[in-house]
């Protein structure tokens, strides 16, 4: 069989999938965003987006998504680094991945109990003499639970890029007199930046539209674009406005993908080319 023909033949399912489940839904969302409640063609929804609560909502979503991503990197990078140094890498990695198989809602409900006034977290605080604190329904609990949920998606790509790093490069750096901090800053980090970028994509983008955690853990004191979209579709039944917010969310995602996109510059340093 002609290999070129065979290749395009095998690609047919992929194209059908992309057309049905990626292009068609996005096209529908864009289409609906141009209609108001009465079904008239209009740009009113876009005007509304810029002149009301939605703009501030976007800013606050970005702020919280940024915090979630920031703390995820802060914890994930050292964890991933340590993982590459351990003996039973695969076992540890599995232990980190397993919780991400559990339903998001279940994990979230568990935290309602843990962070409650009479939950273990407060028992601990009381035992070390800090007294009972309101943990649930605060910014802290929101960030904590979100980071907990997203962290496997940050650890994995960073781990992969660290694991592929050629140890000879670090030896060379040390031989040439660099301190370990300098080695990290000038050699390790730049070579694993792509892992961090993939991690940011996998965390920041979903964090923009979280809405289960905002309600259950933050008591709706934190609201994101996801909350607004859900309300527009299910409560107000204003599909036009809901779609408009979704269009902006998609635009933000594209921008973030571009910013964190991986550009190939010559051969990659670890000797493998993708």
């Amino acid at each position, binding site marked *: 069989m002609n290999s070129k023909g065979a290749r395009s033949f095998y690609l047919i399912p992929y194209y059908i999938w992309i057309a049905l489940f990626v292009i068609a839904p996005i096209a529908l969302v864009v289409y609906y965003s141009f209609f108001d*409640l009465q079904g008239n063609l209009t740009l009113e929804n876009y005007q509304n987006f810029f002149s009301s609560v939605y703009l501030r909502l976007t800013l606050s979503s970005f702020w919280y998504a940024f915090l979630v991503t920031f703390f995820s990197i802060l914890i994930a990078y050292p964890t991933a680094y340590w993982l590459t140094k351990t003996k039973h890498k695969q076992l540890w990695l599995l232990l980190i991945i397993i919780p991400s198989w559990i339903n998001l809602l279940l994990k979230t409900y568990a935290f309602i109990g843990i962070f409650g*006034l009479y939950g273990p977290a407060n028992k601990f605080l009381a035992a070390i003499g800090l007294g009972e604190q309101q943990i649930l329904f605060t910014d802290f609990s929101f960030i904590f639970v979100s980071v907990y949920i997203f962290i496997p998606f940050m650890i994995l790509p960073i781990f992969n890029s660290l694991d592929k790093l050629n140890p000879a490069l670090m030896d060379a750096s040390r031989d040439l007199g660099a301190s370990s901090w300098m080695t990290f800053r000038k050699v390790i980090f730049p070579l694993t930046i792509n892992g961090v970028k993939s991690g940011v994509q996998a965390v920041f983008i979903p964090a923009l539209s979280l809405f289960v955690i905002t309600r*259950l853990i933050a008591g*709706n004191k934190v*609201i994101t674009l996801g909350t607004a979209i859900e309300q527009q*579709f299910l*409560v107000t039944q204003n599909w036009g406005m809901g779609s408009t917010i979704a269009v902006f969310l998609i635009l933000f995602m594209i921008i973030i993908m571009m910013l964190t996109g991986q550009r190939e510059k010559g051969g990659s340093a670890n000797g493998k080319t993708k």
Partner: protein
Amino acid sequence: MKSIIQATVAILVASALLLYGVSVLEKSSATTGGGSITVYNWGEYIDPELVQQFEDETNINVVYETFDSNEAMMTKIEQGGTSYDVAMPSEYAIEKMKENDLLIPIDSEKIPNLTNIDPYFLDLPFDPGNEYSIPYFWGTVGIAYNPTLLEGQTFESWDDLWDPTLKQEVILVDSAREVIGMGLNSLGYSLNSTDVSELREATDKLKTLGPNTKAIIGDEIVEMMRREEAAVALTWSGQAADMMWINENIDYSVPEEGSNLWFDNMVIPKTSSNVEGAHAFINFMLDAEVAAQNADYVGYSTPNQAAIEIMDPEVTGDERFYPPEELRERLEVYENLGLEMLGIYNELFLEFKMDMEN
């Protein structure tokens, strides 16, 4: 390549086996005729034993699904897909469903138990002559509170929620009409207000409730109050009854400025594929014994006079849950304000959530 084919075959075989298993299970549960009906109800809004009893008596298999807002329910029914046979919307939702032609008229001849219903709850403005709906439960919106966690505060007025001693103690229900309506009522306005300046005033007042607001959540309120995580909650009467069932310290009051009086009703949506079965189910739920057992379980107030007569007079004489008619006069029923207005209510609610003072 070979292993890919092997894996594909294995998955296909496993799927076929599962499919066969499901069909066998479905057959065994629906063999005895009568077919099946799909009931679409609010969460925790029926005694599951009664569903079982209905299945045993009629041989009709019941598929039970739940929703958490009238709007979500209507959206799903409008989209079709699932053939819901019985649903339990509130009064303003019925008005809208009638408008959108989503309901099948009810044949009252097939519901002999309709005579059990207190005439006060029949022929209401949202459905004259009960052409499309049969009363299921009714209740109010008010304040559930736990005096053991408070220092003697009472809640005769909505303004009592703004008491500075209630810092971080008040939970609000995550529903635009209830919360904005409370703001309107506290200012002496109608909770069906469509006056934008009144709505703005109510929202601005609500924002000052921020320091007292612990959270804005849904059904989790019941658990929070039961476990004494919070002292005060804006909630529905039946949720308050649920809380009291477990935690006897909790009390409930409807503030005197007025509040919402609501009726949930059984309807047969256009999606129904078993209209006979739906009628049978509605009639079954109106039976005196069944309605009494259901009211005991659910905790909301039943409109079923025959059931009230056989229920514990201590329950049905409780004016917090069965307010006498003159008290009900102070309360308002939600009107269908139209989508445009609903959008404004929701945008203001969103603004309230964003701008709550801390």
